[in-house]
């Protein structure tokens, strides 16, 4: 039972923090980068590849680094801290995670090696328009003709889809409702991709498949929904790490602002009603932090049911904390918190995008409520 980083983890954090600070210490750079054609900085992406960050989650056999969940969590926290728009969570953790989970050895070695090297950008297409966090595909259908497969339907939002070279698509297998869901690779050029910006300026896309040629990942025609669900849970936990980084920045920025901003001739920290609210933000942050660390540590155990439970728990906690902290950060900043020039309000937008993308509070609460009589006490250990 240990919540502290070892020396290597500390060093990783410093290295990533240093690299990202040099890129995004100034929020204006983040704003400009997010508004650019790709929506992220390909130079920075290359440096992340060089540092081994893109290959962190993948085994050395597949061209990755073979690091553990704690290390990936560290990277996500640091990305969140500066609101980096790079599609790490979407492209590496989620899409890469799907390939690693269900791909054949050859597919993994090929795709994950290139992903780790920064040579290919992936995106996961697993949500139908209006769909809600389901491992069962209902927006895209797969058809087989002999050994060749095609996909039809629409996926939206595909986070990071606009810049992706290869799409990792979940699709309903032929054979009706009971046939399950498969995972397919589709070259981005074989689909109609319409990119757009989310509220935090990060990018997603609407992707239409119209007889698009597809390659099954792993053994064809097998129902992979259990693996799909586990990778979603894993991504949820890493998204919570990213949200933690955002919240840490927001609490710090708010505290600094209360100390420096003057109104009525005194600094704002003279007003007890405001400092007490900052204290409540800190409390929420600490509780969320503990839950994020815990959920991240559960992954190493390798039990999908435990990870699913941890994803729901951290999802609910971070969703609540993010809304509280995100709203209070703007409110305590006043007008300036509403502006796109200032990181605090954009952080609030980013928290909501993470939440609605990966599973929001009511969703996780609903799942936890269903299981409430499965246990007596909730056990931390």
């Amino acid at each position, binding site marked *: 039972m240990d919540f502290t980083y070892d020396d290597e983890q500390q060093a990783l954090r410093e290295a990533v923090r240093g690299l990202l600070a040099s890129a995004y210490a100034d929020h204006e750079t983040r704003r400009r980068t997010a508004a650019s054609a790709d929506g992220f900085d390909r130079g920075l992406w290359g440096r992340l590849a060089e540092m081994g960050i893109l290959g962190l989650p993948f085994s050395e056999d597949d061209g990755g680094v073979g690091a553990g969940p704690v290390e990936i969590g560290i990277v996500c926290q640091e990305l969140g801290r500066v609101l980096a728009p790079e599609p790490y969570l979407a492209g590496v953790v989620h899409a890469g995670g799907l390939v690693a989970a269900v791909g054949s050895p050859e597919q993994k070695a090929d795709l994950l090696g290139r992903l780790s090297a920064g040579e290919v950008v992936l995106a996961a297409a697993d949500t139908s328009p*209006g769909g809600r966090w389901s491992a069962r595909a209902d927006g895209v259908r797969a058809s087989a003709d002999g050994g060749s497969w095609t996909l039809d339907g629409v996926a939206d939002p595909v986070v990071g889809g606009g810049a992706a070279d290869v799409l990792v698509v979940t699709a309903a297998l032929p054979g009706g409702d009971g046939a399950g869901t498969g995972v397919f690779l589709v070259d981005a050029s074989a689909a109609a991709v319409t990119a757009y910006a989310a509220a935090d300026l990060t990018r997603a896309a609407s992707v239409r498949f119209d007889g698009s040629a597809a390659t099954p990942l792993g053994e064809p025609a097998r129902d992979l929904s259990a693996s799909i669900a586990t990778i979603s849970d894993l991504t949820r936990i890493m998204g919570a790490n990213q949200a933690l980084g955002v919240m840490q920045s927001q609490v710090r920025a708010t505290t600094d602002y209360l100390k420096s901003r003057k109104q009525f001739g005194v600094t704002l920290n003279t007003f007890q009603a405001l400092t007490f609210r900052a204290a409540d933000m800190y409390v929420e942050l600490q509780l969320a932090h503990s839950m994020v660390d815990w959920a991240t540590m559960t992954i190493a155990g390798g039990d999908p049911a435990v990870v699913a439970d941890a994803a729901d728990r951290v999802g609910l906690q971070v969703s609540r904390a993010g809304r509280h902290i995100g709203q209070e950060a703007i409110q305590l900043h006043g*007008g300036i*918190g509403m502006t796109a020039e200032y990181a605090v309000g954009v952080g609030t937008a980013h928290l909501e995008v993470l939440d609605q993308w990966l599973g929001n509070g009511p969703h996780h609460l609903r799942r936890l409520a269903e299981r409430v009589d499965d246990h007596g006490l909730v056990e931390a250990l």
Partner: protein
Amino acid sequence: MQLELSPADAEFRNRMRELFTTVVPQEIRDTVLEGRHLTRDQIVESQRALNAEGLAVPHWPVEWGGQDWTDLQRHLWHEEMQRAGVPTPLAFNASMIGPVLAHFGTQEQKERFLPATANLDIWWSQGFSEPDAGSDLAGLRTSAVRDGDDWVVNGQKTWTTLGQHGDWIFTLVRTDTEVKKQAGISMLLVDMSSPGVEVRPIELIDGGHEVNEVWFSDVRVPGDLIVGEPGAGWTIAKFLLGNERVGVAPVGATKRALATLKTTAAAQLEDPLVRARVAELENELLALELTALRVVAHSSDGEPHPASSVLKLRGTELQQAVSELALDLAGPASLAARADDDSPQEGWARRAAPTYLNLRKASIYGGSNEIQRQIISRTILGL
């Protein structure tokens, strides 16, 4: 105590309901009802249509286009307007500078400005806040110095809502640095096409361009464009802000937004937790609407009732809470915030995140909720 409207008031309400749904074009009302953005022209067209029917500025003095209505009738006018999706007459004109000029202006100012203000022939902007004086209005620094008959204005205003459309701006300036902070403030009316006035957009987190900075560099303002005496600005501003608070609680619009959500997200209404959240919000909104009616009944002397702070405080909280519910119901579809109209995601879901973010302002602008709590604890509770 009596629940029903009197026959006269019931008749009044029916007339309002009919007028609002016939006088203002359906397309404009649909834009409001669906939570889309209004263009400048739509706002102008709507207000002119209302003004033609005497519905734009009913709370003004009758001689300047007002109606001799009871407080309850004004409330019904406001609620029915929101329910029908009719854009509220531009607040800067109808609720702010209009009543100020009618009360403090010279006869010449009234004749020159009030009819054009009611009809939105002049689009007014508000120049109060400054970068270093948000809630602390008295700390403002923009200066106006006498030069012959004119005033010469220098300084910067910010958070000027819709200032990009402004023809004129009513602004608070410091005309005397020798006296106590509040006593050195005056209100000037400034033609925004004057040399030296510059409007710079501020982009907000919802991606919209709704507020602006307004810079004054040696702007010359003729002496007859001061409102009241030099040094009267603080008194006038307090009068204006008191008026602003009345009816600022968007109860009708929030009720409508919630009712619409029940239809657009009907499938999710199967979930008992969603139903409970809707039921809670409906109840809170009912309590707030009833409070507005009860406050109306107690404010017949024309002064804003201090409980109007209750309406502003809770009204904005509920407006924000409904936008949170909408966002949670939108779920992943809400990511398509800046997708264009041929997106496969539904419009309400695409607008959910920008609306949520935009409405964070509701508890900041127009007297932050902290200011409202202070008014309640000091003015009402005597703390």
